């Protein structure tokens, strides 16, 4: 691509897209903040009730601001990060497509529009993960992410359609509180399907494995799609559906359990990794699990905690990814144990990493701390939820340990072997992390700055007005003790990791997971498909034709036998010349079976065809006769050419048993054709309804007397369009096969 060779292309233009998106969104904040929503719609498929319906309320606004705001920082970052790479135009195009579809996802109010945007984010994610498409690992990761999120997307489509058929509307905003939704027997199916969509997209256990693998993408993509925005689409949808489905059986319970399992599986898996990007990715899985857990609990306080935790996570995780990318750029490694002492050469990077890590660890004073305190404040007081408090404690411990690992290990201690030639990142690589790191700390100190935004979002998710109160001090109590305990054990865990200077857990802990199952399925699928194909579409043309004839005979003959009418043995007044033609057809057909040389067989088959043509002539179908005549002529010529070119002049005789089977199958088809002809000749009197229609309207509305041709080019024109397209494609296919074939007259 030319873009790779022109580093001076006006890449600032790309930055305009997120900038304008943010600028367009901001002025609507006063409306949103006052608890109202903006809607806009235009007809799409009016017959089915689908609309381009957009709706901007508190929840959409929060997500849209994260998407366009972090997008702006990411685009600035990526301009420098991707400077030396080929295919930058492709990269930025897909990044822009992603941003647009993600904005569409959070703004759409119509279920089908939401689904289309949902799929577009999966597709753009596929191309962005696979950006370095010459690397095997990138391609495999892109494919895996697309398969997992794509299958979930299909489930989501079914779920949303069920939901809209139950509620009688395609607008999400009108579904909440629809009568009969909760009692409907189909609602559980919709719940399961929508959950499948949310859980695949937001990397919930057991579908979480695609997210760490997606780290094969360039770092801006990891920071943007796979930590801040796209993976939150599932969380967004769960929040969006919460007012609709929170009363449905299984919704809250399933979300809470899946979320808790994900929070544990994600954070524990992070302890196996060496690569800082993969560590952060697993922590993202853990954080997404925590968010789902909170949505599952579903109380007012829980939803308040969701928005706080969500914003905190988007800020610190985006920052940390960009910082790791900067370190990777400067030193060539993302393994923290090979680094050390970088704070002397990369002071700003080190400072930002510390600030973001404070938030990741959930230590005061940061948004992460408030988020964790809110989480513990939700799960601790209610006795049945205390098990979740244990989950929160364990995941908090691991997050704290890895926050220390990521923020301290590369920057402190003696200079590591890969740190020697390091240098501070350019300002464009730093402005994103600086803004996001400051954003992780500052709102915790000035709570009033974001409370309105968060309250509006929580109100939309809850379905009624609520106020999010941010405070660093929640008073003495178990949530604070648990939070501090998690920090303390996290510090201890970091100590263990520091002493080993390697991942705490073995790489294969705890044995094969869901990914192994996925890989096995992906391997078994093509094999099973190949076996089925081999059964139905045999290698040899002779076997394929036999399958075809048997299916045709059974299907048509069976229908005829069940539905009638039975063929009648009426007599047909035949002229002598008609009888002669029939004799010609029969004799040539028998000759075709008896002859041994293929050229001769082709020739007598041509004669059979001409006999049939004569019958068309006699029975008043000149169109058919002409076409049949031309087709027969060309078929004989083409068949002869094929036989000659591929040296297939000799026939191999089949075994006598095989011939008996073939004779039986062919006879059955012959009898069926006789029965059909007999039914057609004797069974029906006068014109059929469709013939009547065509003969009446052909001249009047289609300006043609030749009904056959008018049907072909006008009444059934779309069919013909499809047919000539198939014909053209088949022709090109034959051409390609002939071109690809080895020597001109050679054997295979």
């Amino acid at each position, binding site marked *: 691509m030319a873009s790779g060779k022109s580093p001076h292309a006006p890449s600032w233009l790309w930055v305009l897209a997120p900038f304008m998106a943010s600028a367009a969104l901001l002025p609507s904040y006063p409306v949103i903040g006052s608890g109202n929503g903006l809607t806009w719609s235009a007809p799409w498929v009016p017959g089915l009730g689908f609309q381009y319906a957009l709706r901007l309320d508190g929840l959409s606004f929060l997500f849209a601001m994260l998407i366009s705001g972090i997008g702006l920082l990411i685009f600035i970052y990526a301009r420098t990060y991707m400077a030396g790479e080929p295919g930058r135009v492709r990269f930025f195009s897909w990044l822009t497509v992603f941003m647009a579809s993600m904005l569409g996802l959070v703004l759409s109010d119509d279920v089908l529009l939401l689904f289309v945007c949902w799929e577009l984010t999966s597709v753009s994610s596929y191309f962005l993960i696979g950006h370095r498409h010459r690397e095997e690992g990138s391609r495999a990761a892109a494919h895996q992410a697309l398969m997992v999120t794509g299958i979930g997307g299909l489930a989501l489509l079914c779920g949303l359609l069920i939901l809209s058929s139950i509620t009688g509307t395609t607008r999400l905003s009108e579904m909440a509180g629809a009568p009969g939704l909760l009692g409907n027997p189909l609602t559980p199916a919709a719940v399961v399907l929508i959950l499948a969509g949310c859980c695949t997209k937001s990397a919930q256990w057991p579908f979480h494995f695609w997210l760490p693998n997606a780290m094969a993408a360039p770092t801006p993509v990891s920071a943007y799609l796979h930590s801040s925005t796209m993976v939150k689409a599932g969380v967004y949808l769960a929040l969006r559906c919460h007012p609709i489905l929170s009363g449905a059986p299984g919704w809250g319970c399933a979300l809470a359990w899946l979320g808790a399992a994900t929070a544990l599986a994600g954070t524990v898996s992070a302890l196996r990794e060496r690569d800082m990007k993969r560590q952060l990715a697993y922590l993202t899985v853990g954080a997404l699990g925590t968010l789902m857990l909170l949505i599952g609990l579903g109380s007012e306080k829980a939803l308040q905690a969701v928005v706080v935790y969500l914003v905190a996570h988007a800020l610190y995780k985006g920052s940390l990814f960009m910082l790791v990318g900067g370190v990777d750029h400067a030193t060539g490694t993302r393994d923290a144990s090979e680094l050390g002492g970088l704070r002397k050469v990369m002071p700003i990077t080190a400072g930002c990493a510390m600030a973001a890590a404070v938030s990741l660890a959930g230590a005061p004073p940061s948004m992460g701390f408030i988020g964790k305190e809110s989480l513990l404040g939700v799960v601790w007081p209610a006795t049945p939820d205390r098990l979740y408090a244990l989950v929160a404690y364990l995941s908090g411990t691991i997050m704290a340990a890895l926050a220390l690992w990521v923020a301290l290990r590369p920057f402190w201690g003696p200079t590591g072997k890969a740190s020697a030639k390091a240098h501070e990142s350019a300002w464009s690589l730093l402005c994103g992390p600086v803004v996001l790191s400051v954003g992780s700390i500052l709102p915790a100190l000035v709570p009033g700055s974001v409370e309105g935004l968060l309250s509006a979002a929580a109100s939309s998710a809850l379905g009624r007005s609520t106020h999010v109160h941010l405070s660093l001090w929640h008073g003495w109590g178990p949530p604070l003790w648990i939070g501090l305990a998690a920090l303390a054990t996290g510090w201890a865990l970091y100590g263990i990791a520091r002493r080993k200077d390697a991942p705490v857990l073995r790489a294969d802990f705890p044995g094969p997971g869901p990914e192994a199952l996925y890989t096995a399925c992906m391997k078994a699928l093509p094999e099973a498909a190949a076996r089925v194909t081999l059964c139905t579409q045999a290698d040899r043309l002779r076997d394929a034709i036999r399958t075809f004839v048997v299916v045709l005979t059974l299907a048509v003959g069976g229908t005829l036998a069940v539905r009638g009418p039975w063929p009648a043995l009426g007599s047909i007044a035949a002229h002598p010349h008609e009888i002669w033609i029939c004799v010609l057809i029969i004799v040539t057909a028998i000759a075709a079976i008896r002859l041994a040389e293929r050229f001769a067989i082709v020739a007598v088959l041509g004669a059979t065809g001409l006999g049939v043509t004569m019958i068309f002539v006699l029975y008043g179908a*000149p*169109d058919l006769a*002409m*076409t049949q005549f*031309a*087709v027969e*002529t*060309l078929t004989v*010529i*083409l068949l002869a*050419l*094929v036989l000659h*070119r591929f040296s297939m002049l000799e026939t191999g005789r089949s075994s006598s048993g095989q011939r008996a089977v073939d004779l039986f199958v062919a006879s059955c088809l012959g009898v069926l054709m006789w029965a059909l002809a007999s039914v057609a000749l004797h069974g029906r009197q006068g014109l059929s309804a469709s013939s009547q229609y065509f003969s009446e309207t052909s001249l009047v*509305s*289609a*300006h*043609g*007397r*030749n009904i*056959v*041709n*008018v049907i*072909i*080019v*006008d009444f059934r*024109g*779309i069919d*013909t*369009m499809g047919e*000539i*397209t198939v*014909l*053209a494609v*088949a*022709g*090109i296919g*034959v*051409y390609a096969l*002939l*071109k690809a074939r080895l020597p*001109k007259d050679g054997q295979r």
Partner: protein
Amino acid sequence: MSPLILRTASDLLRPLLLLFSIFLLLRGHQEPGGGFVGGLIAACAYVLHAIAYDVAGARRALSIDPKTLTGTGLAVALSSALLSVTLGKDLMTGVWGKAELPFFGPLELGTPMIFDVGVYLVVMGTVLTVFLELRGD
């Protein structure tokens, strides 16, 4: 061996076959005929030429790549289908116009006939693509 009779016949028959194919194409809407059979017969004209002379000669006589004919045919058929959309009607609605020709009298022309021209070109192009490639050189 030079098949003199075949070559002479081919030279005489080719223009006749082509003329006949166009005749069939144009009358198809009113009388037996149409784009499909017209395309087949037009292809026959060049098949005959390729058998009487050689493939290179047939390609020269055709003077256009048969694959191009196929593509052009598809484009013609599609554009005839789209014409009604530009006029605000449903896809493939027939659009008809009348013209008074000096010698032939009134002539009705419509998008289905243009569609038939597309069919003609696709059939001719596809048959010739396969035939000329199979026959080799």
